[in-house]
């Protein structure tokens, strides 16, 4: 089996985590390429629908990275995101995807090393959890379809 490379989506606030990612780049820090960043004007903009959609589209994990508590540019955006992430985690758990595949982090724009650390931490966590159950099923189906095709081919060859 090929080594599993998870797809992790990071919803990053423009005023902190996104800038921290930029800083991580400037500092030439390595972090896994598995993390795909979506920039938000504030984590308060994130909606539960967005958080669920990434999993529907094939992400194995996701996290929301907002400002340190008390430091939100829009005062309460990161607290709002925290509550939404908590509810989305519950929904993912109930849906059988696993609530632990979604997390909330807080960091400042000056925390480039922390951004890289979080990216590594989350990627490793998802790698350990394995592919999203949605993908596992898709793979199983593709595999059984492949086997069926092989069996049919064998059957035809035997007949001939």
């Amino acid at each position, binding site marked *: 089996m090929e080594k599993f490379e998870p797809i992790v989506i990071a919803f990053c606030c423009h005023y902190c985590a996104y800038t921290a990612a930029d800083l991580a780049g400037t500092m030439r820090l390595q972090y896994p390429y598995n993390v795909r960043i979506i920039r938000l004007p504030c984590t308060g903009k994130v*909606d*539960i*629908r967005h958080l*669920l*959609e990434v*999993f*529907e589209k094939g992400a194995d994990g996701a996290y929301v990275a907002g400002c340190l508590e008390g430091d939100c540019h829009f005062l309460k955006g990161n607290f709002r995101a925290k509550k939404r992430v908590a509810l989305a985690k519950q*929904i*993912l758990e*109930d*849906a*059988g*995807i696993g609530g632990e595949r979604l997390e909330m982090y807080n960091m400042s724009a000056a925390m480039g090393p922390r951004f890289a650390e979080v990216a590594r931490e989350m990627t490793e966590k998802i790698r350990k959890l394995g592919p999203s*159950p*949605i993908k596992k*099923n898709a793979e*199983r*189906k593709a595999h059984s379809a492949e086997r069926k095709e092989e069996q049919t081919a064998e059957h035809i060859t035997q007949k001939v």
Partner: protein
Amino acid sequence: MIIAEGKPIKEILAMIEAYDKIIVAGCKGCVTVCSTGGEKEVGILASALRLARQAQGKPLETKEITLERQCDTEYLEPMREIVDAYPAILSLACGAGIQFLAEKFRKHPLLPGVDTQFIGVTEEQGVWTERCQACGNCVLDRTGGICPVARCSKSLFNGPCGGSKGGKCEIDSQVDCGWQLIYDRLKELGQLDKLEIILPVKDWSKNRDGGPRKRVREDLKI
């Protein structure tokens, strides 16, 4: 407005187990205001159901639609255009809306996505509390605008009872005693003398006790 609460996803999944595609129908009325069955909640639930079914290996197709109101015939038209392509409808409207859809779309099983709870108000963002039980015979003029039917746990007309302690009800220390609220309000209004008026026996036949209710206005009928 009518307050409802979303059913647990597992309960809904069990309900829709037999279907490979469904309509998830929201309502832009009360359930939108109490954040239970509006466009956004329809999107979230449909997404959660699709995810759950994909995880089970039985993909589900959903059609999301949010009607202006599910309790009015004229707003059901957008539904008529799509309904035949789906075997069942999961409605996030209140019990009235769900039943109305069931009456109008007779070939389709109607599944409830919410539990309808009470007629209430938004006390603060995200907090809703009960105010009215639709008893059909309002007495708020005599009780300082506070309903003894809905606000008193026993619906007493001669409260408070012995279970009232420190202004709270014996059923729960977080619940205000309805009659304490009535007394305080009448005191504020300088209308404590209203408590001395003996209320006639309430006509409960106008409540649910008289069976399902109906209201007709001949002047409005077409």
